[in-house]
């Protein structure tokens, strides 16, 4: 059975899954879920993800929801294919995977949802949310900046899943007026330039509507 990814290319969480599939050089079919008509709340979709959210990943072995569980599954199942995305110490990898999910993503998602995603789905941007969340995320990004001054990648010397999981949101931010959040921090900027120059990422980026 071919790999199927149920989602939308304007959804940062779907893009996270697309990114790992391209890093691994895996073919997949993107099956659009029509959120406007409530496709994500239909019984067939809820059977795949009871939370009614995209993306959902399916291959011959099983079905996975939650984008970070999907990227972890693909990185592990296909460890010997393409780049090994788990090549770091357990402590550093687990720490920075969690930092992305609990420190970086909540404020960053709110910013890029307002600036990057809402315009694509016919909703209007709330600039006060953007300003509020930009203030909050500054402190988090300062920690990243100090960490990347001493580490080439988040979990050490190699590009890993910990770096990859950040890519959709930073890319969407890079298309917005708030990219100075990254651009003004030299080590963050250098890290982003490095990881976004990866051929697999370029392949992902050209397929996106941002």
């Amino acid at each position: 059975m071919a790999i199927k990814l149920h989602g939308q290319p304007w959804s940062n969480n779907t893009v996270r899954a697309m990114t790992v599939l391209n890093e691994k050089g895996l073919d997949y079919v993107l099956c659009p879920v029509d959120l406007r008509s409530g496709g994500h709340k239909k019984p067939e979709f809820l059977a795949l993800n009871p939370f009614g959210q995209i993306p959902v990943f399916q291959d011959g072995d099983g079905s996975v929801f939650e984008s970070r569980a999907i990227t972890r599954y693909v990185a592990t199942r296909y460890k010997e294919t393409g780049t090994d995305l788990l090549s770091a110490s357990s402590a550093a990898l687990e720490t920075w995977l969690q930092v992305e999910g609990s420190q970086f993503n909540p404020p960053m998602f709110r910013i890029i949802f307002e600036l990057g995603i809402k315009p694509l789905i016919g909703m209007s941007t709330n600039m006060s949310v953007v300003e509020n969340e930009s203030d909050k995320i500054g402190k988090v990004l300062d920690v990243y900046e100090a960490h990347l001054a001493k580490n080439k990648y988040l979990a050490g010397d190699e590009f890993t899943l910990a770096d990859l999981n950040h890519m959709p949101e930073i890319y969407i931010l890079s298309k917005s007026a708030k990219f100075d959040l990254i651009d003004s921090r030299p080590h963050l900027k250098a890290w982003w330039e490095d990881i976004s120059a990866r051929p697999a990422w370029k392949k992902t980026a050209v397929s996106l509507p941002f």
Partner: protein
Amino acid sequence: MAKGQHKSPDFLKLQPFGQVPAFQDELTTVFESRAICKYICNKFPEKGNQTLMGGGDGGLLSRTSVDQWLEAEGQSFIPPSSALVFQLAFVPMFGFKQDPAAIEQNEAKLANVLDVYDCRLGESKFLAGDDFTLADMAHLPNGHILVSKNEDLFMSRKNVGRWWEEISARPAWKKVVEMQNAPQG
């Protein structure tokens, strides 16, 4: 933390975000509670409960199910439950006024999440499958406070109630609660 120790230079070396917990062993430092849990499970695969991260006969898919439900906990359960814990437990403790709108909004969000859990726990003994795993365990800290303040949220849902009683009766959890209740020395 009342004295700002979590923002002291020494602590920031362990945890640069200035938050608790931080874990240290002879090899390294780990922060972020779920990372600490996974690190400990990876470091001691032969000790105590050996199915906390799935694996075993279920292999990768069983581990992935744990990852999946642990992500659901972090992304869907934690935001409304933490907001409620803050309003129901910490705000009164510090002598501030509760925000009824925040309580109502977050109870509604949490109710939606618990409805999904109730369905899942009708088909599966624990969130990730047949075994108690990190995915269930991660719910204990906020769950404990929420149930003490408003047990209806969990106990009015048959399967969530059954699951909660089972996971909160585990001796390892009871040991944690005892430590929380012990006088601070």
